């Protein structure tokens, strides 16, 4: 004990100068401004960086959030778009404010997926409002509405838990239109007393919607799927193929070893690589090119779209590698293989679009999965045969 005290006091003795800059450092520490948000800190809690301050209401302090995204938000957005930890990207559900909310401010309901939350606050700019964040398990509004977490029950529960009737003097909440899949406006009114007004599909239309005395025109009510909206979804599509693709690649390497004579490594390398390239071509065609060019590839069936884009892309690629493939049989094998992959992944993209119905997808799958499997079996046979 005594020793510690002694050594401690030695260090702090003014005569001992451990570093030349120590005095300076001490003085610059002294003028460090106090973080104004430090007053909101509580032991065991961490303040979200998007919280600007707190506003006092009849129910206590409510966090007021920034409408501007910072660097961290943008970096996280990038990673989530690439599929990194996207199911853990959440905001704590509950009531938030933005701007200078008061008793007459509108209440905007949203999901607790941070990407959704960021999108909303960014578009609100200088609007004063309350934001009621539902617990959708980190899923966006539309998908959560389909899965039942963005629901009548959840709205009613949050409205009551946040004592919304004490926060605002009116009795209305603005629910994003895409939430309607999981919400009954009538039941919300019956169970909470709050009237649901369906807001526009896109957060970017909210300022105009509010200015138009909460009326959305036809365009605000329609879901779009622009080339940018399609492109931004493709990294996750590609990421989803990663694991099965690695397993397939291993199988392809093993198959490449089958041939006349002994198991040869040179053989595995050449035929393995070219077949893996056929796999990659199929993946890029089905999960990237088809989604991006979606409306420009004529047929309505996604599986067919995938066959068309797969044919074009793989022909180009196979001609380049024709010297290694050796013969028309091998060529046909890889061509079929690549197209089957492209067709399957293109069909898989129906789950991501805003215009395919479950009935339509079911019909397509019943028709095309057997064809895709058949193509896979035939191409494997041809590929092995072509080695002999």
């Amino acid at each position, binding site marked *: 004990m005594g020793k510690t005290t002694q050594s401690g006091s030695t260090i702090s003795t003014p005569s001992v100068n451990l570093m030349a800059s120590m005095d300076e450092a001490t003085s610059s520490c002294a003028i460090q401004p106090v973080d104004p948000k430090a007053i909101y800190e509580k032991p065991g809690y961490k303040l979200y960086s998007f919280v600007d301050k707190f506003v006092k209401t009849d129910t206590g302090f409510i966090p007021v959030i920034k409408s501007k995204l910072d660097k961290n938000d943008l970096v996280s957005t990038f990673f989530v778009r690439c599929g990194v930890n996207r199911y853990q990207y959440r905001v704590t559900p509950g009531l938030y404010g933005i701007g200078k909310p008061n008793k007459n401010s509108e209440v905007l309901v949203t999901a607790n997926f941070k990407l959704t939350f960021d999108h909303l606050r960014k578009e609100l700019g200088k609007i004063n409002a309350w934001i009621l964040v539902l617990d959708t398990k980190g899923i966006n509004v539309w998908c959560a509405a389909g899965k039942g977490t963005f629901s009548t029950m959840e709205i009613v529960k949050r409205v009551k838990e946040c004592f919304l009737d004490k926060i605002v003097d009116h009795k209305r909440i603005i629910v994003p239109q895409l939430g*309607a899949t999981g*919400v009954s406006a009538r039941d919300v009114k019956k169970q909470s007393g709050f009237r649901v007004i369906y807001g526009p599909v896109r957060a970017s239309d909210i300022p105009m919607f509010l200015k138009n005395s909460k009326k959305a025109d036809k365009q605000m009510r*329609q879901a779009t799927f622009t080339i940018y909206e399609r492109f931004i979804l493709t990294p996750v599509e590609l990421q989803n193929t990663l694991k099965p693709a690695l397993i397939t690649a291993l199988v392809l390497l093993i198959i490449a070893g089958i041939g006349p004579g002994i198991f040869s490594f040179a053989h595995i390398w050449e035929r393995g690589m070219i077949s893996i390239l056929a796999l990659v071509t199929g993946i890029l065609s089905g999960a990237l090119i088809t989604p991006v060019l*979606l409306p420009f590839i004529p047929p*309505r069936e996604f599986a067919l779209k995938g066959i068309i884009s797969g044919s074009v892309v793989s022909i180009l690629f196979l001609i380049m590698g024709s010297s290694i493939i050796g013969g028309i049989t091998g060529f046909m094998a890889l061509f079929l293989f690549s197209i089957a992959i492209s067709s399957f992944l293109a069909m898989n993209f129906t789950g991501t*679009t805003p*215009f395919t*119905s479950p*009935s339509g997808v*079911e019909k397509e799958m019943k028709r095309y999965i057997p064809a895709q499997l058949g193509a896979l079996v035939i191409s494997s046979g041809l590929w092995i045969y072509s080695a002999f």
Partner: protein
Amino acid sequence: MEDLKLRHLKDVSTLVLDKERCIGCSLCTEVCPQAVFEMQDNKAHIVDFDACMECGACVNNCPSQAISVSPGVG
């Protein structure tokens, strides 16, 4: 370029509108993200059947149970 309206298969949706039951509240035209409905003579009409994606927003919000969709597992 983006004016090409995206469409999936024809005649697959299980959407059914019972015009007898429709009370003309127009909520279905408000919640549908695909502009499937339009109001004509104070009744909802299906004007774009193949655009329906069976999301069920109209069904949930119709006050008179005039609309139904019954997709399978999906």
